[in-house]
């Protein structure tokens, strides 16, 4: 609203909620008309919301204690929540490290395929949150590039999997992987 690119409050609210909840719905008919800063922030909301805003807060801010489990439980979907390590703050950090590492790999692969860095950053934000905000009107299809589509499809699948599993894979706890 402040940039004047989405002038109506209801539209701006819808777009923001859609971003942070990784819903991916949009009121914009011409996405390319937005400034690059707005496109970046729009996609970035997916990245923050993908893991949960409060998981982010738990991971990086002080004053978390054993009761932060209640926040994590409210933020994470599903009936149960698994602790990777005894402290919730450490669990949130591990999850974010996996989240960031996977995202960096995706960006590198897209850049290696010839996608501009800005585009690859924004598209990877859309992929990690599994929300799908893109920066072009016809999304990834506009690039008309099979390599980009393949990379993004694979990472969509990877980001759709429970992140606890990656942690168990890293520590070679294959029993837990199969359990997951």
């Amino acid at each position: 609203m402040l940039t004047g690119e989405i002038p109506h409050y209801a539209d701006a609210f819808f777009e923001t909620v859609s971003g942070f909840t990784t819903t991916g719905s949009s009121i914009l008919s011409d996405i390319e008309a937005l400034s690059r800063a707005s496109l970046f922030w729009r996609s970035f909301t997916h990245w923050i919301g993908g893991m949960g805003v409060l998981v982010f807060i738990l991971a990086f801010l002080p004053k978390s204690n054993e009761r932060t489990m209640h926040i994590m439980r409210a933020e994470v979907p599903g009936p149960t929540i698994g602790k990777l390590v005894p402290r919730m703050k450490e669990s949130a950090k591990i999850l974010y490290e996996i989240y960031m590492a996977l995202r960096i790999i995706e960006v590198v692969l897209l850049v290696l395929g010839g996608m501009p860095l800005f585009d690859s950053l924004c598209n990877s934000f859309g992929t990690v949150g599994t929300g799908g905000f893109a920066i072009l009107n016809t999304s990834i299809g506009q690039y008309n590039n099979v390599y980009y589509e393949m990379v993004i499809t694979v990472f969509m699948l990877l980001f759709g999997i429970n992140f606890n599993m990656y942690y168990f894979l890293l520590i070679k706890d294959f029993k837990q992987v199969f359990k997951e």
Partner: protein
Amino acid sequence: MMFLLNHKLQKFNWHVIFNIIGYVLIAEGILLALPLVIDLIYDEQVWSAYLIGMALCIGIGYPMSILKRKHTSYFAKDGMIAVGLS
């Protein structure tokens, strides 16, 4: 009816909930620096909007984050409210 609602609302640990929302606002305010940098790189003249956004988030979030807690314990219901509001 209003008494019942008021009584239920009083059961929440609002200080902790406001603390958490304050931290969320501060974090968002800091993260708004990223699109601001992007705007400065591409020179599209919308940086002031992001600067105002940052100031608003941190300006509102900081006082909320330093609210003194009457008691530090919070439970699942408080977590649910904090997540919902943030």
